[in-house]
């Protein structure tokens, strides 16, 4: 045992061989960073903790397949991003009732009134304006753009690392990040307009 005990690759090799304390050490080493990333994506402590927990379950289940071709952190970011996207997808799928649906009542058929529980785009923008923060504006970006912005600007990942984490060509990452920044600029301009009203 030596200082290299903390090396990711060594911990992973030991965990792959069945050493549970090494897997625990891997969790301990990365849980804070994982949570910070998840929180920056969700802005919700409960949701972020769930994403991190699910992420480590996926790490555990797939650890035997990890060949070390990328850094463990890159792999972890990919898993966490997928967990986050899955959560969002599930949320979107939850309200799937057709707007044309009719409801059978004792008084006959009535048209179903659909109430959208989520905030309207206007409310979202207003909320961001209230927060008067760049974080609020980032939260309004589409999920994929948000992940890229957080990876680059909060987590200080390089274009190459983001490309590896999202399994995209570097050029695509660069162009999508540029679009994300422009979208953000537009959101912030709208913020400023709100304050002027």
């Amino acid at each position, binding site marked *: 045992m030596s200082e290299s005990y903390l090396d990711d690759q060594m911990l992973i090799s030991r965990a792959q061989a069945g050493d549970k304390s090494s897997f625990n050490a891997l969790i301990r080493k990365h849980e*804070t960073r994982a949570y910070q990333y998840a929180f920056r994506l969700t802005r919700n402590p409960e949701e972020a*903790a769930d994403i991190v927990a699910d992420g480590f379950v996926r790490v555990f289940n797939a650890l035997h397949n990890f060949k070390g071709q990328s850094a463990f952190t890159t792999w972890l970011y990919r898993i966490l991003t997928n967990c986050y996207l899955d959560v969002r997808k599930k949320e979107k799928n939850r309200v799937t009732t057709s707007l044309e649906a009719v409801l059978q009542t004792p008084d006959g058929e009535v048209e179903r009134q659909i109430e959208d529980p989520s905030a309207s785009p206007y409310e979202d923008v207003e909320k961001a304006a209230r927060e008067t923060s760049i974080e609020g504006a*980032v939260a309004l970006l589409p999920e994929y753009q948000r992940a890229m912005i957080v990876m680059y600007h909060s987590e200080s990942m390089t274009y190459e690392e983001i490309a590896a984490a999202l399994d995209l060509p570097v050029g695509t990452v660069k162009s999508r990040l540029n679009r994300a920044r422009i979208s953000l600029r537009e959101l912030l301009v709208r913020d400023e307009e709100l304050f002027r009203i």
Partner: protein
Amino acid sequence: MNQDKAREFFSAYHEDSLEPGLKQALEQRLRSDATLQADYAAFVETISQLESLKHEEIEIPSYLSDRIATRLEQVQSKPKFGLPVWAAWFRNAAFAGLAIAALTFALPMFHTDKSTSQSSIAGGSSSVDQLVFKADGSNIILNYQSSGTKTVVVSSPLSGKEIQRFNLDGQTLRSPIENQQDNAALFKVEVLGDKIASLIAVPGTATLKAKSGDGTIQDLSLALAGHYHVPVVIEAADVTHHVSWNFASPDAVSAATQALANDGFSVDQRSGGLIKILDR
């Protein structure tokens, strides 16, 4: 170059990674288009605001480790994974931080008189530059007599976090290690520069009821410490070696010997009931 095309190059231009031809064309367009110029200025302002994201302080919830452990336990309970009984594995990890945080290290007592401290070292050993452990009830006393400049480090093998560091210069270190948490806790003690470190399992305040299990040598030592309430020291090269145990014996040394009978390790009991697991 139209406005939309020009906007596509904002990031690359800002990072100064745009190829010379495109850079020239964009600059020309910026000079002649006030709207685009304003757009670019707003873009640069946005990038500058994004810099603040790095400094956002995010509080880590106290329940995070427990949630991870719980979720992993749920996965463990599903038969499709067919792994050994590691249910307590993750749970222990969740509380490892607490256990370590609550550890009390008495202030180290440095015997500056090099000639007088030997008799107080465990078992009357006259070992110099060797870590010596002595049981004190369910706690452990760490002793180390340095021949010169040495650094003894106590850390958590789970998190790798350093708990305490002792810088010695020919002095003798004597420090108790106590665990005030419920569960037994594992610590690594090493002299910087030495190849082999010692792992010590210190019993907690509660008694582990489970008599059987499987896992690594480290897990066995935690189980022994938890069940029999004795400190266990491991001085073996391969602490990840997998073993099974069933504590049918009334005493810890017999139970450990039985568990390691065919695995290339020897077990002995030192004064005060301390159990030592060594390479054979």
